[in-house]
Structure formats: structure tokens, C-alpha cells
């Protein structure tokens, strides 16, 4: 009895010993695997931190040498002068200008394309359309830059007026048409008598329609008269950059729209909403955080792009006259870093070298802040949507 127990015990404990060893091995393997994954993940984070660290370390000497004032308030950029002048205001302005320009072009286009892909086109078409749009992202930026410099810039110089006019007609005509219909509907909505209402509505439609057409034609002819002196300008770069930001915006916002799900859409239809109402009042608000993330990604793409602006922006470090003139050459932070890095080694003048890192730091800070802001907005949006 006793011995049997012992045997059993030892047998059990023998099995127990084996499984303990096994478990130890498994635990070891698990720890090793996890730590390798952690190492890889933290490596990425460390790389980002290191970039921040080294850029900052090389940027600080500039501010020690020259202070903050000149960099942010002067637009005299003569780094090779004796003594050099490092006013980056016009360059910062140029970066802002092309980023704003490309955002204004790419965001409406991108979101419209995303809505079309997710809610309007049939599935079979979407399957092919989306990869084609995403193909745009695979084109190297130097190819875009070459196109902008060699084809688009001369085209703007020879056919600038007509191009602007056609762009105006194509972009403005649908919006004005929509506005005319909506306004005349709204104005005639209060009239009680249906027959009179229809007549007045028709009358208003014709009056506003003729007015809108005249407006379209007038602006169009003004635009057609513009002669673009230099094709390497802020407009050229904004257009090219908007095409480069487009695939990111379309792809990410389409994913966000898809993520809204059938339930919300069907719920909306069940309540009697039309497709337009469903899109505008249900799907867009529900997907807004994802769309915002898409927009921020697109903006970052435009802000950080170097090759295209270096090749096609004209690189002249002045604030255009008047300040909103997109037909003048500008210079951006990224292009300045790329262009002046070549010989600005430590030997040829310390400030001249470190000022480029100051610009890099500025770009890093801007993208860091906008990432932070978008993160905050996304979190808040989620809270609102979940009803908290």
C-alpha cells in the first residue's frame, strides 16, 4: 500500500519533472520570442528617437550662433554670403503655401473619390479602380518631378491661361449648378400655393442659372487672359503634390468609410433616408476620424516631399507679390535642405551647416504636432460617436 503510493507518487512526480522541464523550455522559448519581437518593435521607436536626437543636436548650434530672431522673421536667405544671412521666413512661407495648395486640391478630390469607391460604384468596378488609384503611390517622386519640370512647366507657360480656364469650368460648374438648384428651392419653399411655387422656382432657377453662367464665363475669361511667365511655380508644385497625396487620402478614407459597416447604412435607409442623406448625415460623420487621419497623412506627404519641389518650385526664396500669388516661384524647407546640403559642410561655415538641421527640426516638430493633434481629434471623435 505504502510502496504503491510511493510508486504512484514517484511515477507522478517523474511525469511532473518531465513536464516541468518542458514547461521551462517553453517558457524560455516564449520569453526569447517575445523579447526578439519587442526588440524589433522598440528598434523602430528608437530609430525615430535617434533621428530626433541627432537633428536636434546639430540644430542647437545654429540657434546658439545666430539666435532665433533672424531665422523666423527675416526673408533674406543668403547662406553663402559673407557674413551669411539665414532668414527662413520666406522658405517657411513657401512650404506652407504648397502644402495648403495641394491640400485644397487633393482633400476634396480624395474624399469624393473615396465616397464614390465605397458607396456608389458597384463592387466589381471598385475591385479594379482602387488598385489603379493606389498605383499612383508607386510612382517615384523623381518621375513626378521630371514630369513637372520638363512637361508641365513649359505647358503652363505656353497654355497657362486656357488650362486655368478649363480647370475653373470643370471645378466650379458642378458646384454652382448645385448651389443654384438648392438656393432656388430654398427661396421658393415658403410659398404655400404649389402651382405658384413651381412657377417662381422655375423663374428663380433661370435667373440664378443665367447669373451663375455669366459669373463662370467672366472668371473664365479673366483666367484665360493670364499669362504664366514662369512654369516652375507654387501652382505647378501644388498640383503635382496633390496627385502624390491623392492615393494616400483615397485609400485610407475609403477604408474608413468601409469600416462604418452595413448596419448603420441599412438603419439609415430603413428610416427613410435617401442615399445622399445617408452618405452626408450618417456615413461621413461616422467615418470622420478615419478621414481626418487620411487628410493628415496626405498633408504630411505634401509637406515632406522634396524631389518634386526641388525640381519644379523654382526655388526662389521670396514671399510672392501679392502674398497669395501661386504663379510665382517659391522655395520650401525640404528643397533648401536638399539643395544647400552639398557643400555646407562644417568647414565652409558652421551656421550655414547647422541652419539646415534647424530646418529639419522645424519640419520634424510640425509633423510631430500635427500627428499629435490628429490623434487627439480621433480619440475625441470616437468618444462622441460612442455616446460618451
Amino acid at each position, binding site marked *: 500500500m505504502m510502496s504503491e503510493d510511493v510508486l504512484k507518487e514517484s511515477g507522478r512526480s517523474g511525469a511532473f519533472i518531465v513536464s516541468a522541464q518542458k514547461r521551462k523550455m517553453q517558457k524560455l522559448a516564449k520569453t526569447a520570442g517575445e523579447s526578439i519581437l519587442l526588440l524589433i518593435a522598440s528598434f523602430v521607436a528608437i530609430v525615430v528617437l535617434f533621428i530626433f536626437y541627432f537633428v536636434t543636436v546639430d540644430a542647437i548650434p545654429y540657434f546658439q550662433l545666430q539666435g532665433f530672431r533672424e531665422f523666423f522673421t527675416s526673408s533674406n536667405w543668403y*547662406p553663402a554670403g559673407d557674413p551669411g544671412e539665414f532668414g527662413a521666413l520666406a522658405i517657411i512661407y513657401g512650404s506652407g503655401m504648397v502644402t495648403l495648395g495641394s491640400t485644397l486640391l487633393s482633400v476634396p478630390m480624395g474624399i469624393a473619390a473615396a465616397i464614390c469607391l465605397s458607396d456608389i460604384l458597384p463592387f466589381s468596378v471598385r475591385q479594379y479602380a482602387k488598385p489603379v488609384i493606389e498605383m499612383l503611390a508607386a510612382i517615384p517622386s523623381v518621375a513626378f518631378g521630371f514630369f513637372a519640370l*520638363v512637361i508641365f512647366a513649359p505647358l503652363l507657360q505656353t497654355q497657362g491661361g486656357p488650362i486655368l480656364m478649363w480647370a475653373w469650368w470643370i471645378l466650379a460648374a458642378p458646384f454652382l449648378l448645385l448651389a443654384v438648384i438648392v438656393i432656388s428651392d430654398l427661396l421658393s419653399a415658403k410659398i404655400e400655393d404649389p402651382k405658384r411655387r413651381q412657377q417662381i422656382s422655375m423663374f428663380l432657377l433661370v435667373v440664378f442659372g443665367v447669373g451663375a453662367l455669366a459669373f463662370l464665363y467672366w472668371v473664365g475669361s479673366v483666367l484665360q487672359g493670364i499669362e504664366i*511667365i514662369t*512654369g*516652375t511655380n507654387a501652382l505647378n508644385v501644388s498640383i503635382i503634390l496633390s496627385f502624390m497625396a491623392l492615393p494616400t487620402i483615397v485609400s485610407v478614407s475609403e477604408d474608413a468609410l468601409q469600416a462604418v459597416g452595413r448596419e448603420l447604412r441599412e438603419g439609415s435607409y430603413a428610416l427613410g433616408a435617401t442615399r445622399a442623406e445617408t452618405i452626408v448625415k450618417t456615413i461621413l460623420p461616422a467615418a470622420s476620424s478615419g478621414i481626418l487621419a487620411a487628410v493628415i497623412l496626405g498633408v504630411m506627404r505634401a509637406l515632406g516631399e522634396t524631389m518634386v519641389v526641388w525640381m519644379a518650385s523654382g*526655388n526662389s526664396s521670396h514671399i510672392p507679390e501679392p502674398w497669395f500669388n501661386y504663379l510665382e516661384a517659391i522655395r520650401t524647407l525640404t528643397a533648401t535642405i536638399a*539643395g544647400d546640403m*552639398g557643400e555646407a559642410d562644417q568647414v565652409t561655415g558652421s551656421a550655414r551647416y547647422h541652419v539646415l538641421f534647424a530646418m529639419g527640426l522645424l519640419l520634424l516638430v510640425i509633423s510631430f504636432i500635427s500627428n499629435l493633434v490628429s490623434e487627439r481629434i480621433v480619440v475625441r471623435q470616437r468618444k462622441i460617436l460612442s455616446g460618451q
Partner: protein
Amino acid sequence: MKTMKHVLLLAALFAVAVSSPLSAAGKSIVMDGSTTVGPLAKSFAAYFTRKYGVKVTVSESGSGNGAKSLINRSCDIATMSRAMKAQELVAARKKGVNPVGHTVALDGIAMVVHPGNPVRNLTKAQIADIYKGRITNWNQVGGPTARIVVIQRESNSGTQESFKDLIMGKTAQISKTAETQSSNGAVKNRVSSTRSAIGFLGLGFVDRSVKPVAVNGVLPSPVTVRKGIYPISRPLYMYTNGQPAGSLKTLIDLSKTPDGKRMITELGFVNK
């Protein structure tokens, strides 16, 4: 950082030791200075190493730094796209260095416009005013009524530097509205596709797609540059400490040999 430097240094030493077992460490030649002369110095160096087995190191840190290195005896040849300044010569004498200049080639800078532009001639003063932003329309210099698109090179460019020295003077700055292109090729491209553009190119880059303008009535060409008639040209120098001897002399005298002359012409410079 420091260990990194050590590793790089070791690697470099190792590479030198392996690649050129024939040349003793003391026999290698160090060249430093102008970026404009850089391509020429590099092709001379490659040719020299191939032919005589002597290692030649070429650095491009600017003419001023070339002079500084020569004075500090940290290079054997200073390549310079300008003559040494008086104060540099004084500093050299103080350190017991006797800089001797050798003109290896000539360099002309051509002012180019669109082939459709009727303007044929500009004076040096007109060019300076165009780049300073005082003349902004072609009709001020006898051309059509069109705003001038001024194209310059980036601040690092040697061509830019010598253009500024020869046309604008030391202190004047180029107008902020001037566009910047990153290479001779890019400037040529912009000028050939923009009707109202003006730019400047190394003589070797001028072709039929752009129209060179006569400066003070003289068209740029190897002949006018060699004769010294064309106003925007300058000699390119190599400076040595005292009269060169041995392999240093052979290297500098390469510019007088047929092979050296061919290299000079191929790089767009002009033989003196």
C-alpha cells in the same frame, strides 16, 4: 561617434594599404580646394594614379579652404578658381610657405537666353542689374515686353560664385526673386523651355537649345575665352608650396600634355 571615426579611419587605412601596395605613405599627393576645379583635379588624379601608381587624394572644400590647407601644409596642391588674396599670401609667408600659382585651364561662363529671344548683346552692367533685380523687363534692354525670369545656381555652385565675383562684385546680392536650379543641365533645360528666361552656364554646356548672348559685344567661345576678350572668364589655378618638383611637377604639367588637354576640353574648360 569617436569609435565610429576610428573604425572608419582604420577601414580607410586598410583600403589604402590594400589598393596601392606600391605607393609608400609619404609619396601620396593630397589636393584640396575649389569645387569648380574639382572635376578636373579628379580626372587628373585618376589618370595620374593609373599611369604612375601614385595615390592622389582630392578634396573639394572651396578655394578659400584650399588656400588654408596649403598654408597649414595639410595639402600638397591647392586647387583654386581664383587667385590667392594678398592676406592669404601674407599669412603663407609668415608660416614659411611660398605659394606658387600655376594656371591649368580657363573657364568661361556663358549668358544664355531662349532661342526666340531677339536680344543679342548685354553689357556687364546690364547683366548685373538684371541679377540685382533693377532691370525686370526685357524691354529695358532692347527686347520684347516680358518680365525677365532670372535663373541662378544654388549657393554651393562654383559657377555661381565666379559669376557673382565677375559680374556682381563681392558685396552685391542676387535678387531674391531669382529662381534657383541645381545644375548646369537644369539651367539649360529651364532656359530652353522658358521664353523670357536668362541663365548662365559653363561654356561646355552651351548647345543649340539655348542662345548665348554676347557680353560687351563679345560672344563666348573657346577662342575668345583663351584670348581673354570674353569678359566673364577666369583662369583656374593649382597652387604649390615653392616650385613643384618630382611627381608634383608631373601632375601639374599634365595640363600641358595632349591627354591633359583632352581632359580639360572634355570637362568644358578651355586650354590656356
